[in-house]
């Protein structure tokens, strides 16, 4: 089961030292996460091939702040849609039979479309911001984490390696690897 190979994705010298374990059973991985968190290791990185509720619950994450960006983007789009159409109507007035120059009902369509457009784009921008730009760098990776294995990376220093390795193996890790800086 020697599938843990060194990742080439992180450049040399910027690697975070620690232990990386792979699990083939979800309950084993959840046990390990709970045990590590009980011992005070809270900055774990857990890799899964697909989102998994049991692991999310074990990690006790707060709700992603992406939703705030969706809201702000949507409201910006809505405001921009109405502001643009109303301002442009007055900038070059089309006078039709005493009807209002800025007519709100038709502008609802533009306001609605821009709400969706800006809401969607800012949602994706938020994911890029939180997951890529602000994501942890230099953490190890293994190709099987996108296939069928769950990975747990524990950033730690050399004097703690022994007990953590024991904990991971007793929880049911298929393999544990030392990750040096």
């Amino acid at each position, binding site marked *: 089961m020697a599938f843990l190979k060194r990742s080439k*994705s992180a450049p040399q010298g910027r690697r975070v030292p620690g232990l990386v374990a792979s699990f*083939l059973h*979800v*309950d*084993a991985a*959840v046990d390990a996460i709970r045990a590590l968190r009980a011992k005070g290791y809270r900055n*774990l*990185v857990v*890799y*899964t*091939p*697909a*989102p*998994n509720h*049991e692991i*999310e*619950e074990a990690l006790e*994450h707060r*709700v*992603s702040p*992406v*939703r705030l960006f*969706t809201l702000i983007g*949507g409201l910006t789009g809505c405001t921009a849609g109405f502001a*643009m*159409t109303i301002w*442009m*109507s007055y*900038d*070059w007035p*089309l006078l039709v039979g005493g009807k209002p120059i800025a007519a709100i009902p*038709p*502008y609802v*369509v*533009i306001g609605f*479309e*821009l709400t*969706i*457009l800006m*809401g*969607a*784009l800012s*949602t*994706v921008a*938020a*994911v*890029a911001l*939180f*997951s*890529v730009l602000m*994501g*942890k760098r230099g*953490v190890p*990776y293994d*190709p*099987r*984490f*996108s*296939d*069928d294995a769950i990975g747990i990376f524990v950033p730690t220093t050399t004097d703690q390696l022994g007990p953590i390795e024991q904990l991971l193996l007793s929880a049911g890790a298929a393999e544990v690897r030392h990750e040096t800086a």
Partner: protein
Amino acid sequence: MAVVAQPHDPSDGHAITQTHAEVTRDVVATLGPPSRGYLLLLAAAVSLFLIGILTFLMLIKDGLGHAGYNPPIFWSVYITTFVFWVGIGHAGTLISAILFLFRSPWRTAVYRSTEAMTVFAVMTAGLFPIIHIGRQWIFYWLLPYPNQRYLWPNFKSPLIWDVFAISTYLTVSTTFLVFGLIPDVAAVRDKVSGWRKMIYSWSSVGWQGTDNQWRHYSRAYLYLAALATPLVLSVHSVVSWDFAVSIVPGWHGTIFAPYFVAGAIYSGIGMVLTLIIPLRRALKIEHMINSYHFDNLAKLTLLTGSILFYAYAMEYFVAWYSGNIFEQTTFYRRAFGPMWWAGWTMIICNAFVSQLLWFRKIRTNLTALFVISIFINIGMWFERYVIIVSSLSNDYIPWAWGQLNPTWADWGILAGSFGWFGMWFLLFAKTFPIVAIQEIKEMIPMPRRRGGHG
């Protein structure tokens, strides 16, 4: 431990019996070297596209006179085909976004191919208003940008709503497709080697499937689906208002928005069936897209087809009940006028053929479904042809009536649009996972050490 996924019962016919590793293996296998049949299909699509390009060059050189525009019919085959392709797109977003919010388990296996179909169909549709405007090189006049004449678009016109609706739809559905692809491209990256690994690594934008990435990703996916849901309903409503806001008899119906949305989804599922029935065999994914999915797709076709049946009946009823002679004449001539053949093609292919799907035997018979899907494609193209061309052909005074004679320029662009769409879809199917790896895996419980299953 909180909620634990129940083990699948293999006897219920649609259980996913594969493991995570088998899902990755089978989907990555679809990206192998192309077969001869695939290359022949691609060559056919590119040839059709070239016919479209040549026709378009002739239109640029000489103008729209080549197309069969003839007073009083100045919206004809191009606008018909525009509405046809926009409609095709709607089934994809229904399946990928609306059924995601409703947590329909059967959508997972087919959603990627339908979402790709959406993007390419809207890409095709977007070309048609540009072809239709005549001086194609100044299409950007549609957009509100500061210019030396201090002019702005008239935002009270449904045509400008359409510009916003279609461009938003194209952007959001492309975003949704690309966003959904990221974890799957990462899974492919970890299975291939050489130059392919380089390209997939670059495309996966550093995806590692960490808890933090999934946390933001899953939330964002939910919000994208929630935004796409009202969008898909709005887009074809806006397209219908291109017609319904005018006062042309046969166009100004208040029923138009829901009528068009139902028709769009109906036509889109028709196209989904036409595409994935051969595709699943060519890519050897019959075990992933099986009769369970087709049965559900067919039920959706039956539902939307029945809504169309009702809408057709209601159009005729309202025309009669209105007591308006222009409205009555328009609808009489749809069934018994010079274009009776188009009117009946639409009614038979859409309202009547879809009723065959009440029978489970037909819903699960792929040959029958494929044939029905071809009828749907033809019927829905003719629906738009009938609505647009036949309504314009009989104006208020018989002196101004006229008929459309489509020319080689109309058919050339129509053929080109199928080539352009087919080319993109075929290229996509061999480049990216056509079945959503990560979403299928999410539905398969992971193995456990103690108790349960594994």
